[in-house]
């Protein structure tokens, strides 16, 4: 069976980036520290978008580049598409604006 591929930029990341368009139900192969791991896509994922590599609870950090890129606004299951519908920015800027 041919898997779609995704890239995990940092081993601690909770989001992997799909390298091709993924249909719901397809399996994706991601390499983490040289070990291949498969995920089943629970949503259709456009190319270069994020797929959840692990479950993330509501309010928990989503990590990419080894850093927090935001928090889950709702619980996210492994295999779901991560984007504006379930990921929000942590509003924290130098000028103290809200």
């Amino acid at each position, binding site marked *: 069976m041919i898997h779609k*591929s995704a*890239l995990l*930029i940092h081993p601690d990341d909770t989001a992997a*980036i799909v*390298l091709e368009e993924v249909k719901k139900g397809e399996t994706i192969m991601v*390499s983490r520290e040289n070990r291949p791991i498969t995920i089943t896509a629970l949503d259709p994922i*456009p*190319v*270069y*978008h*994020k797929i959840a590599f692990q479950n993330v609870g509501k309010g928990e950090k989503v990590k*990419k*580049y*080894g*850093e*927090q*890129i*935001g928090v889950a606004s709702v619980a996210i299951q492994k295999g779901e598409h*991560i*984007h*504006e519908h379930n*990921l*929000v*920015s*942590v509003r*924290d*800027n*130098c*000028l103290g*604006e809200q």
Partner: protein
Amino acid sequence: MRLMGYRRADGRIGFRNHVLIVPTCACSSETCRKVAELVPACVSIVNQNGCGEVEQNTAITREVTAGLIINPNVFGAVVIGLGCEQNEIDVLLEVVRAKTGKTVGRFVIQEEGGTAETIRKAALFAEELVRQASLCIREEVDFSGLILGTECGGSDTTSGLAANPVLGRVCDRLIDLGGTAILSETTEFIGAEHLLAARGRTKEVREDILRIVQDYEKHLLITGNSLRNGQPGPGNKKGGITTLEEKSLGCIHKGGTRPIEEVVEYGREIRKKGLIIMDTPGYDIASVTGMVAGGCQLVVFTTGRGTPTGNAIAPVIKMTANYETYQKMGENTDLDVSGVVSNKETLEEAADRVLQEVIRVANGALSKAEILGFSDICMKRLCNYI
């Protein structure tokens, strides 16, 4: 692979051996260009500043022109001034003398009585410098003398996805070998500055990182511009970027993961080892110029859409993860890491290849921009000219 450099009398290590013809100001730039035409083994730069500017801008012009002369990729220089400019030649030369004993010629158009006489004398001086430079021989050096600048420009989705992560791994390896890497482009930190600051080695470094971002935002707000509003834009979101932190981290990641040792001002000489942040604009040519003025001998520049830019005295190695860009603009692009995006190569394998290329270029292999003789220079400014 061994690293081979020029060990300068002032202790710095050079990876090129240029004779640089430098104008103190815009008025002497054309004269410098004519000298370099007569002595093609030299490089000249255009200096659009050095006069008609506020004092704070003159300070930047002076620091950058001095920094370019001091950079160990330069064997010797010929400085040409007009005579009445704010970037006074003798003040500039004092700044240079305090840091290095390399040979620097001094010619002033108003003293010589016109451009023809200045060009003649400066060219004769440059010819002798070129002859002396040709006697220099490389020796084996360790990584502690290497400072690598990083830059991203003409970015697209492949930049944050692959090219910058590859460059980040190269920086990590270089630093672990004892070298130094510079992360710049302060405007690109906006949105993730708190995450970057957390990696500062000391409280002072952490505060400096936040301060340079805050100051830059305030500076731009004076003209009514915010870099935060509306980011990420619709194009970014379509390409998969959800939050501003994510967008900024995509840029920041080109500097790697090591702790940040120091934050330096634009063009200021870099003395510490490890990962350094320099406060530069995101504007590519100005950013590269600042880092080179601070002493970096090589730059790796990631690009999604492609760019031909180089630098007068430092190789600028262009790297893309966009397969089409490498096919269309291969003439201007040194490295293709699109294999990471098409799953033919891991980030680690690509980083290994890139580090080998960095060493080859350091040792003398020419980058595409050098083959084309592109000597782009630009200096950051605080405000309009007077």
